[in-house]
């Protein structure tokens, strides 16, 4: 299968600290790659470099073979790379429906054509489908800020899917979510993945969540990849256990 995302020799340092050190990996079409690692191992920095939020010091990022290293996040998103955030990032005063329409509207036509187009940019139905897919129908008109934390996490994920992305990067989707909601979120992510043959990269601390969701796991420690493999192998890998349990 072809690689959707290729990262080669990526390096990013802040002052004297090298947060991401010569990291190379690829993400194949249709897989769910989990990225785990202890705190400070460079997961978020890696994400931000891949997504154009930070400029790496060296290395290259390619999406479907196209170099994207110096691309702005908005252009990268329109290329089909979408993300969720570790800390909640919805638009609290917009309704759930408007949050979703916003997440898709910039993919429709040009800026000028949107000015003269319909208010919902032709995304009303798509938003409705996404709302019912994530079982948020009873909340469609509520301002997103009035939703519970777990519901906002669902909305956050739904927003990432609105434009029918090629690749979705999920930054700690399970963080701070209770167990019931977590099971629901995992089940919905899996259902979406099965339905659209989507490609996911997931950063996560919650081991159970990663092991149950991901098809392949990559372990970072001190900015380097120390192991890659199937979830059940990673769980038994002595190097990984060493990195997590300490020196």
């Amino acid at each position, binding site marked *: 299968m072809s690689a959707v995302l290729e990262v080669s020799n990526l390096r990013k340092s802040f002052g004297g600290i090298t947060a991401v050190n010569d990291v190379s990996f690829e993400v194949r079409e249709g897989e769910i790659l989990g990225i785990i690692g202890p705190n400070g191992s460079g997961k978020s920095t890696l994400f931000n470099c891949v*997504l154009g*939020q930070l400029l790496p010091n060296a290395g290259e990022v390619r999406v479907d073979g196209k170099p994207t290293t110096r691309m*702005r*996040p*908005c*252009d990268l*998103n*329109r290329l089909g790379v*979408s*993300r969720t*955030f570790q800390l909640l*990032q*919805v*638009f*609290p*005063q*917009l309704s759930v429906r*408007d949050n979703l*329409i*916003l*997440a898709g*509207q*910039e*993919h*429709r036509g040009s*800026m000028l054509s*949107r*000015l*003269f*187009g319909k*208010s*919902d*940019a032709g995304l009303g139905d798509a938003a409705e489908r996404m709302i019912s897919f994530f079982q948020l129908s009873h909340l469609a008109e509520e*301002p997103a*800020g*009035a939703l519970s934390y777990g519901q906002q996490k669902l909305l956050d994920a739904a*927003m990432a899917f609105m*434009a029918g992305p090629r690749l979705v990067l999920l930054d700690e989707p399970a963080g701070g979510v209770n167990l019931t909601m977590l099971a629901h979120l995992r089940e919905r992510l899996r259902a979406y993945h099965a339905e659209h043959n989507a490609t996911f990269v997931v950063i996560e601390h919650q081991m159970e969540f990663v092991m149950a969701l991901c098809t392949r796991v990559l372990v970072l420690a001190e900015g380097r990849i120390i192991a890659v493999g199937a979830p059940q192998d990673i769980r038994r890998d002595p190097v990984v256990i060493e990195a997590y349990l300490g020196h």
Partner: protein
Amino acid sequence: MNRLGVIALGAAAIVAIVAPFFLRRYGIYLISMWAVLTIAAIGLNLTLGYAGQVSLAQGAFVGIGAYTVALLTQAGWAYPAAFVCAGALCFAIGWGLGYPALRVQHHYLAFVTLAFTTLVFLVLRNEEWLTNGIYGITGTERPVFFGWSTGGARDFYFFCLGMLALLSAATWWMLRSPWGRAFLALRENPIRALSLGLDTRRYTLMAFAIGSSLGGMAGALYAPLVQFIEPNSFGLGMSFNLLLMVIIGGSGYFFGPFVGALVAVLLPEWTRFTEGYYLLVYAALVMIMMAFCPSGLLGLIGRMSKAMTRRAPTPPELHAEGTTP
């Protein structure tokens, strides 16, 4: 908008149309000024209330628009052409002023725009060959449309009111399009907006340009209304006053500027009975209002109507159209 809102809007429109028949010359001048300043405040509300970019330069754009129209009509241009030119010029300058907003935010941006206002004031005062300096420009002619002369006070008021209706309808229409949603996203969470494919750079510049353009068009009405323009009218005072209108009315509420401009134009007049103290009383009222309803008068009304319609507790900062950033 709910039914009560439509009724209120209709009633307000009727009052605005019949009012000049019950007012004397100075009263008509005041409500004309209200219409003109409302247009400028709508522009600032777009930049500040919707897109979340603080600007203390709106008064300068009113000045640029006023001088553009005054100079061009003096040079023999037809008023409509001069009007369009004022709007277009302010659009272009506003676009340029948007660039600092891509780098700095909040009070830093306020300082950048404040410096711009001072710069415009100095140009208007010092470039005498163009602007006639502190002596100002008198007698900007009021236009004639198909035989309808707007020379009289009442006629000119209706011209201003018509322009207000036209420009606010255009703004309403724009805010209903996906652009309105994009502007709000810019205000609420620019980082998330960027990750959703929203070109925040272009929308920021656009918010500044359109807001400034409305300021320029207000200026294009201001010059023929007051008949005498001079640099001091467009100093920091006017920019602060316009900011006050947006905040008092309710920043981020579509009708906020209408209410805010009404308060800012009429309240000083109503407090005149206190004679020498009227500006003092006005200032005190503004301070009290800001302390008790920071989301402006429309924010207060929204909160009250919410409390009456449903008793369920809702977080106070959540309402339909927005709050102060």
